[in-house]
Every structure is written in structure tokens, then in C-alpha cells.
């Protein structure tokens, strides 16, 4: 069991997972999103390799309307 903070909310997962698996589990696969892990950018091309660890703080963002 690992616990991640995703966009400010705690989430539990049964087993360790990669960034790509997290994105897929949140139904964001194929979407244009950007990911930050513990304050560092995770490039989209590295989602598959990036292993997430217990206690990681993740930010997943999109573009929205703004001025």
C-alpha cells in the first residue's frame, strides 16, 4: 500500500505504480496534461519509467480559460 497526494488530495494505491499508471487510473490517458512530482517536472516521455513512491506529492495540470 502506498499513499500519494494528487492535486492536494491523499490517494491510496494497493501497489507501487508508475506515473503512466497513475495517469491511466485517473482516466487522463491520452489527455494533454503536465505532471510535477515533488516540485520537479516529469516529462511526458518519461511517464512509463517514472516510479512513484510513498508520500510523493503530485500535481497534474491542464490548460483552462484565463486572461
Amino acid at each position, binding site marked *: 500500500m502506498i499513499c500519494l497526494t494528487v492535486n492536494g488530495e491523499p490517494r491510496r494505491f494497493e501497489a507501487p505504480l508508475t506515473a503512466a499508471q497513475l495517469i491511466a487510473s485517473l482516466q487522463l490517458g491520452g489527455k*494533454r*496534461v503536465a505532471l510535477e512530482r515533488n516540485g520537479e*517536472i516529469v516529462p511526458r516521455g518519461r511517464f512509463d519509467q517514472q516510479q512513484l513512491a510513498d508520500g510523493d506529492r503530485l500535481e497534474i*495540470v*491542464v490548460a483552462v*480559460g*484565463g486572461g
Partner: protein
Amino acid sequence: MDQLLIAGKAYSSRLLVGTGKYKSFEQTRAAVEASGANIVTVAIRRTNIGQNPNEPSLLDALPPSRFTILPNTAGCYSAQDAVRTLRLARELLDGHSLVKLEVLGDPQTLYPNVVETLSAAETLVKEGFQVMVYTSDDPIIAKQLEQIGCVAVMPLASLIGSGMGILNPWNLEIIIGAAKVPVLVDAGVGTASDAAIAMELGCDGVLMNTAIAAANDPVLMASAMRKAVEAGREAYLAGRMPKKLYSASPSSPTGGVIGPAKDKAA
């Protein structure tokens, strides 16, 4: 052709528009089209986890292949948050480095915090971002932001979302006169004449959102703003006549007027 040059790239439109506060993406798209803008701003926000995964996204309505997407740091109150937001934006937009920096200082007035803005600008320029920076209409700060390496300086006309128009044209003139990078008025424009005045002052462009989005008919206002920016630019290039209290030089010929007053004595 008269084009807006930012960081070495030419844009045919001098009107930049925001994409917030619209009723729908359809209305956003229609207003952007009517504005003729090449550059459109977007905000960067956390995804709404658990929402309908098939919900359309803003970048479907405004594809980066057609528009230059200018990610902003709206809502950031520290240099650190602004820098993080734009690093995420660069990743989101495939390495795109043209960004709009704004760091606010007060949630009620949305007045910019120029100390944090200067600090964020330094970091971002070092990291290779091309920074268009929102700031107050202080000529000293505007010059410092230029010296840091910002590619455009964007002083407010009045406070964000206020629609109060240009409150200090004299400061804008000083900023424009001293600047070696494009100066764009960002924030405070309320209606078409405000945009025209900004351009007549010599601004290189105008960035607005609420003036269009909060109009009763945003698409029609977008069209009005397009014309106002073009008209103001042409008036600036044409060079206006000098102002004087009165003129002894009427527009029509002084001779040849009919009537006895003009008759010669027999």
C-alpha cells in the same frame, strides 16, 4: 506590412485576448475568431479528477497549431508558484517558451506584486523562457523588467477586470518612450475607445479578456476591439494633428463667400 514583433516572431494582429469567463468553448472560439487575435492566453490549473474523461478541452477549441498559446500565471502570489506554473506550462505545450508572467499582490484588487514579479522574471529568463510580463504602470519597474530580459512589458491600464480604461496615460507614454521591447497594455480596457487610445499612445499591442467576455455580446465586442486596435495603430502611425484651444484656419476657403459683406464698392 505593419506587424507586431515579439522575441523575433511576427504577428499580424496587435490584439491579444484571454479565454476566461466565457459561457462555453464555442463562444470562446467565436470571440477569438472575431477578434482576429493570433496570441491567446490560457491559465494552468489542476485537473478535475473524476470528471467525465470525454469532456472537451480548451486546447481542442483553440488548437496550438492555429493559435500561439500564451500560458499565464494568473492566481499566483509568489515568484515560486509562478515559476512552477510556467515550468508545467512549458511541458504541457511541448517546450513552448513564450509565456505571460503575472504575480499578484492582493486578492481584492489583483494589483501586481512587482517585487515577486522581478524575482520570477529573473529565474524564468535564466531558464530560457521568453517572458511577456504583466506589471504596474511604474516606468522604473518596466525598465528593470526589460533589463532582466523580458521580451515584452505589459503595464496595466487599470486594475484587472475593472474596465476603468487608461487611468494614467502619462506613465504609459514614459514607459513607451523608454522601452526597447514591445509595450502592451494588459488589463483595465473596458470598451473599444480604451483600446484605441492605448494604441494611439504608441503601445505595440493590447491584451484583454473581460472587456470582451463580459460584454452583452462578446463576439460583437471582439470585432469592435479588433477595429479599435487597428484604428488606434493607424492613427498613431499617421501622426495626429496638434491640439490647440482654437484655430484661425478654417477647413473651408476664406475667400469667395457670397453676400453683400464681400461685395466690392462700385
